[in-house]
């Protein structure tokens, strides 16, 4: 039989436990609330953009098809066609990928597999610092160096062009691609490398036949993230794109991607014009959403 003092102790412990459980529950709720904030923000932004952006098509009789495939964007004449911008965004992004992916990938492979520690210690932070540079500075750099260079060497009347955008975006996507790809390459078990080398494969052969394939999903993720960075970039692009409203047909054409269209005109737009800019945002958002779905798909494949 437990005596009196023992019972007292038990009840004391019980009450202190109750307090603990309450604090546990409370802190769980605080964490939950904080994590919900980002979801709420996301929903609010999407809701707002979609509400404003879809209004002209549902309430004002504009055709969505004409909006997507229209060639002319003249708000004062009530013409809202964004095909040139969609094409510009896609071209700029693909072009940046063509240049940025190989360079980024080779950098990642070099850092993770080949570089002596002393060299990796210099390059790695440099690449990471590249990620921290504000995008407007990339634009300034592009405007001050790349644009005049193109102007002088390609004999362009105006250096602001698709190729200038591609070059700037390619540099901007490098840190994303390098960091993510490097991490995934480093995550490939050492035993794979040993196995391959022990079979008489050369180090470079090992990298391309075993290490890179094993890191494939991470590398794909790196590319998709770089893509997202490129397609959403606004500030640097405004400065080097030239922002002409034409369907780009050559690398030297001045272009206006979706992002810069919104940034350039939102300041003074009102009424339908403003809503059409939100609609442009929906198109941009759809691109990003598709990219994220692709990314999630890759991620789940990698987990297998």
């Amino acid at each position: 039989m437990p005596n009196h003092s023992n019972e007292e102790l038990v009840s004391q412990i019980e009450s202190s436990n109750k307090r603990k459980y309450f604090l546990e529950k409370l802190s769980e709720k605080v964490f939950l609330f904080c994590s919900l904030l980002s979801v709420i923000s996301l929903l609010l932004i999407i809701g707002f953009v979609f509400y404003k952006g879809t209004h002209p098509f549902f309430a004002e009789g504009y055709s969505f098809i004409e909006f997507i495939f229209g060639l002319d964007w003249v708000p004062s004449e009530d013409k809202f066609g964004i095909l040139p911008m969609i094409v510009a965004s896609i071209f700029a992004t693909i072009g940046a990928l063509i240049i940025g992916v190989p360079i980024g990938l080779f950098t990642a492979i070099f850092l993770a597999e080949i570089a002596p520690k002393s060299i990796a210690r210099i390059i790695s932070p440099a690449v990471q610092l590249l990620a921290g540079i504000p995008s407007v500075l990339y634009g300034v750099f592009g405007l001050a160096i790349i644009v005049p260079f193109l102007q002088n060497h390609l004999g362009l009347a105006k250096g602001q062009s698709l190729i200038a955008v591609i070059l700037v975006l390619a540099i901007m996507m490098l840190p994303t691609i390098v960091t993510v790809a490097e991490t995934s390459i480093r995550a490939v078990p050492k035993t794979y490398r040993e196995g391959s080398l022990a079979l008489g494969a050369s180090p470079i052969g090992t990298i391309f036949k075993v290490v890179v394939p094993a890191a494939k999903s991470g590398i794909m993720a790196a590319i998709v993230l770089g893509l997202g960075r490129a397609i959403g970039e606004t500030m640097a692009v405004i400065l080097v794109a030239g922002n002409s409203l034409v369907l780009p047909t050559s690398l030297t054409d001045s272009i206006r991607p979706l992002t810069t269209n919104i940034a350039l005109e939102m300041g003074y737009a009102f009424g339908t014009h403003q809503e059409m800019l939100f609609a442009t945002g929906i198109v941009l958002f759809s691109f990003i959403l598709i990219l994220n779905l692709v990314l999630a798909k890759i991620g789940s494949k990698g987990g297998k």
Partner: protein
Amino acid sequence: MNTTKMDRNKGNEQQIQNKISVNDLNLFYGEKQALFSISIDIREKGVTALIGPSGCGKSTFLRTLNRMNDLIDGVKISGDIVIDNENIYRSNDVIKLRTKVGMVFQKPNLFPMSIYDNVAYGPRMQGIKSKKVLNQLVEDSLKSAAIWDEVKDRLKSSALGLSGGQQQRVCIARAIAMKPEVILMDEPTSALDPISTLKVEELIANMKKDYTIVIVTHNMQQAARVSDKTAFFLNGEIIEYANTETIFSMPKDQRTEDYVTGRFG
């Protein structure tokens, strides 16, 4: 007189049959010496077991035989390792060495690709492209590793779907596909269950007529079961090297006896 002469003849024969001769091998990890003046002759076509407590240098020694220690920064080596009359540290053709001296690791390390591609990997890296040749090579290798019947219907599926024991036997098949002369095994069964271990041991027993096998093992029964000769390592030195029977029944050195009777390690 007669017997002496015969003994000497026998000795000469032994000399010819030596596949690997190691002479005064020292190995340093940076400042720390890991192997001390190792000298050992390893005979052709047979199983040589390296036993000893953890950290005694037996795996390190094994890895000097196909220069896998080259991958580690700061490793310095002195002394000679001669395989088939060729000093492997004088030649710079590591790739050729590793095609001749295959290796099976502690944990199965199949690549994340199909069983077929795993076995065909080495030959492909050597430039063999013919499908017919590769098919034959893969089949032969898997048969030699006694795993053909278990995987023949799923050659194109991922190798990582196999059980650990099966994976290890495919690893052995992968090594065999290179048509090596020496196969190094670094505790090949330490990650396997008893039944898989038994299968791998049977396989080793069958392979020794064709290959020179050097196996590192923690398991003394295993050494006793599979090997012809055994070297006992302690603190980076070879304490005793003799026929396996001798090592386990009447070792000369007290430390060997203590180890094989389970008094330490």
